[in-house]
C-alpha cells in the first residue's frame, strides 16, 4: 500500500511535465497552429499581377487558405488585404492577432507578398456616435502605436503597409471635412513610428478615390495629392498607393483630368514627378472594371476580361514606376447582392468566374 501511494507524486510530476511540454511546443510553433500546408511559390509571366483580397470578414481558415491558394494559382504575386485596427485592439492595450496571423501566414505560405492596409478605429479611440472611419488628431498617436505594433509583429512577413484608405472621401474620413493637410498630419505621426518599428517596411500613402467631385463629400484626387505635397507629405511615405477604376473606358483611353479611367494613374504620377518624387514608385492597390448588367459605369463581361489583362500588360510594359496592380476584388465572403458582386474574380462558393480563368491563362499559360 505504502509503495503504491509513493508512486503518485511521480505520476503527477510526469503528467505535469508532459502537459507543459505540449503547451510549450504549441506556443513555439511558428505557424500558430494553422493548417498552412507546404511552402509554395508563385509561377507567373507577369510579376506585377496582384489582387485585392477580402478576407477581413472571412472566418473559416479553410476558406482563407482556399482563397490564397487560388490567388497563387492564378499567377498573382501580390495581395492587398485590410487589417482593421478595431478588430485587433478592440479593447485598449489588448491585442487579438489570431485572424491577422492566420491571413498573413497563409499568404506567406502561398508565396504571396502582402500589402497590408490599416485603418478602422476602435470605439475607445473615437467619440461616441462617430463612424469607425473617424480619427481625431489627438488619436493619431494611438493609431501610430497600433501600426508600429503591426509592423513589429509582422516584420518578416509584411513588407508593405498602407496608411488609411481614400481620405479624399468624406465618408472614408469619418464624415469630417476632407483635409489633405490633416491626412499629412496623420502621416507625420504614424510614418516614423512604423519605420522605427521596422525600417525595412515600405509605407504607402494616398490610396485616393479617383473622383471628379469637389464638394463637402469628396475632393478631386489630383488636387488632394498636390495639397498633400504642399503640406509636406513627401517625407512621410515611400510609395504612392493609387486607386484606378476604369468605369466605362478601355485601358488605352488617354489620361484626362476630367475623366476617371485607368490612365488617370499617369496624372497622379506626373504630380509625384513635379514634386520631386520621381525616384519613388507607385502601386495600384484598388481598381479595375465592373460587369454588372444594370450599373451605368459597368462594361460587358468580356470587356472586363480584356481590359483587366490589358491593364496588367500596361503595368508590365509601359509603367516602370509601378510595382504592382491589384484590382478590386478576388472574392467576397458572401454575396453583396449589388453591383459590388460584379467586381469579384471568384464567386462566394469559389466557382471561378471566366475572368479568373482568363487571367490565370494569361499569367501562367494554364487553364
Amino acid at each position: 500500500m505504502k509503495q503504491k501511494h509513493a508512486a503518485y507524486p511521480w505520476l503527477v510530476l510526469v503528467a505535469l511535465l508532459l502537459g507543459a511540454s505540449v503547451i510549450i511546443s504549441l506556443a513555439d510553433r511558428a505557424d500558430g497552429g494553422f493548417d498552412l500546408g507546404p511552402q509554395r511559390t508563385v509561377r507567373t509571366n507577369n510579376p506585377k499581377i496582384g489582387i485585392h483580397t477580402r478576407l477581413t470578414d472571412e472566418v473559416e481558415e479553410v476558406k482563407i487558405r482556399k482563397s490564397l491558394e487560388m490567388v497563387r494559382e492564378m499567377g498573382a504575386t501580390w495581395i492587398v488585404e485590410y487589417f482593421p485596427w478595431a478588430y485587433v485592439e478592440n479593447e485598449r492595450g489588448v491585442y487579438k492577432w489570431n485572424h491577422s496571423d492566420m491571413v498573413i501566414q497563409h499568404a506567406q505560405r502561398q508565396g504571396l507578398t502582402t500589402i497590408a492596409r490599416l485603418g478602422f478605429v476602435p470605439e475607445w479611440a473615437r467619440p461616441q456616435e462617430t463612424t469607425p472611419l473617424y480619427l481625431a488628431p489627438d488619436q493619431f498617436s494611438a493609431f501610430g502605436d497600433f501600426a508600429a505594433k503591426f509592423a513589429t509583429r509582422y516584420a518578416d512577413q509584411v513588407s508593405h503597409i498602407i496608411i488609411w484608405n481614400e481620405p479624399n472621401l468624406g465618408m472614408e474620413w469619418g464624415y469630417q471635412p476632407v483635409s489633405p493637410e490633416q491626412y499629412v498630419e496623420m502621416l507625420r505621426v504614424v510614418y516614423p513610428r512604423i519605420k522605427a518599428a521596422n525600417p525595412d517596411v515600405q509605407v504607402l500613402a494616398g490610396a485616393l478615390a479617383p473622383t471628379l467631385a469637389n464638394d463637402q463629400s469628396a475632393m478631386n484626387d489630383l488636387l488632394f495629392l498636390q495639397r498633400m505635397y504642399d503640406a509636406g507629405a513627401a517625407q512621410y511615405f515611400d510609395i504612392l498607393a493609387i486607386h484606378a477604376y476604369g468605369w466605362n473606358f478601355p485601358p488605352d483611353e488617354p489620361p484626362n483630368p476630367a475623366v476617371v479611367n485607368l490612365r488617370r494613374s499617369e496624372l497622379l504620377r506626373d504630380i509625384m514627378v513635379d514634386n520631386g518624387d520621381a525616384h519613388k514608385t507607385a502601386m495600384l492597390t484598388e481598381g479595375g472594371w465592373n460587369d454588372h448588367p444594370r450599373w451605368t459605369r459597368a462594361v460587358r463581361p468580356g470587356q472586363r476580361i480584356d481590359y483587366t489583362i490589358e491593364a496588367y500588360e500596361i503595368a508590365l510594359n509601359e509603367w516602370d514606376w509601378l510595382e504592382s496592380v491589384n484590382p478590386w476584388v478576388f472574392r467576397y465572403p458572401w454575396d453583396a447582392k449589388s453591383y459590388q458582386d460584379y467586381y469579384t474574380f471568384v464567386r462566394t462558393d469559389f466557382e471561378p468566374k471566366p475572368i479568373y480563368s482568363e487571367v490565370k491563362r494569361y499569367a501562367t499559360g494554364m487553364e
Partner: protein
Amino acid sequence: MSEEKNASRALHPLLYLLIGSLLALLLAKAISSGGFFFPFSDPTWSAMQSRGTWRVGMDPSFPPFESLDAEGKPAGYDLDLAQLFADEWGLQLEIVPIGFDSLLDALRTGQIDSVISALPFDPRTTQDVTYSEPYFEAGIRLAVRSSDAEQMRSTDVFEELSRDMTASAANGNEGNNNESNGTSIQIRKNMAALLSGKEVAVEWGSMGDMVGRQLQRIDPTIELLPYETPNEVIIALQDNSNIGAVLIDNITLLQFQRSQLQSGQSPNPASALIEIGPAVEGNPYVIAMPYRSSKLQTEINYLLQMFQASGRLSDLEQIWFSP
C-alpha cells in the same frame, strides 16, 4: 383503481411544471425577438388599406423591367405588374423612385411598402424582409433549336436530368448551384452528357460562359464558342448550323423568342430557340415586403398564382420583351 387515481394525481404537479416551463419559454422567446407577434396582424397591409395607397420602391434604370419613358415617367414590366396588384386590391399605386442599393433600406425604414425592381432573391436577408414567390426567372438557360429539341428530349440523359431538376426545384434549389449538393452535381453531369461533343455558344465572360466552363471540366468534348454580346450568341446560332446549343440569360432568350412570334410567321424550327429544363443558374426576381408582412405576402403570392394561371404574366412578357 385507487392506485390509478393516485398516479393521475401525482402527474398533476409535473404537468403544471411542464406547462409553466413552456409558457416561460414562449415568453422568453417573445421578449428576445422584440415582442409578441400575431400571425394574423400585418401593420403594412393595415396601413395600405387605411391610406388607400400602395407605395412601391423601384429603381427605373433597368429596361424592360423599369425605366423612364419619353415623358420621364416610370414604365416597364415591373410597373405594369405592380399596377395589376393595386387594381386587384382597389388601391392607388404610388411609385417611389429609389437607387437600387437603397431599396431594402427604404423598406426597412418604412418609406415604402414593397419593392418591385427586378430584385434578385437574397437568402441572407430573410430575417430582415419578407419575400414573395419568384415572379420572373432571369438566370441562365440552356436553349437549343426547336428542331433539335425533340431529339434531345427523347434521350435517357434528358429524362434523368428532368427528374433531378424537378427534385432540386422541389427542394427550393431551382437553378441554384451555389450549393455543391449531390443533386446539383448530378444535374451538371447530366447536362454535360447532354451537350457532349456539341458546340455551345456563350457570351464571353458571362455567367453562361462560367456554366459552360463548369460543364467543359466534366466533359472536355464540349466546345465553347464565345461571342461579345448575348445578341451575337443568338445570331451565331442562326447562322452556324454546327452550334448545338446556347447558354444564355433568360431575358435575352425571351426577347428573341418574342421577336420571332411578333414577326407574324410561325418560327422556323431550324432557328427558333427552345429552352431545355429550368434555369441552370438561377436568378429569380421577387417582390420584397417588410419583415412579417404575412397578410401582404399571402395576398401577393395568391395573386401571382392567379396572374400566372390567367396568362397575365405572359401578357406582360409579350408587351415588354417584344422588340
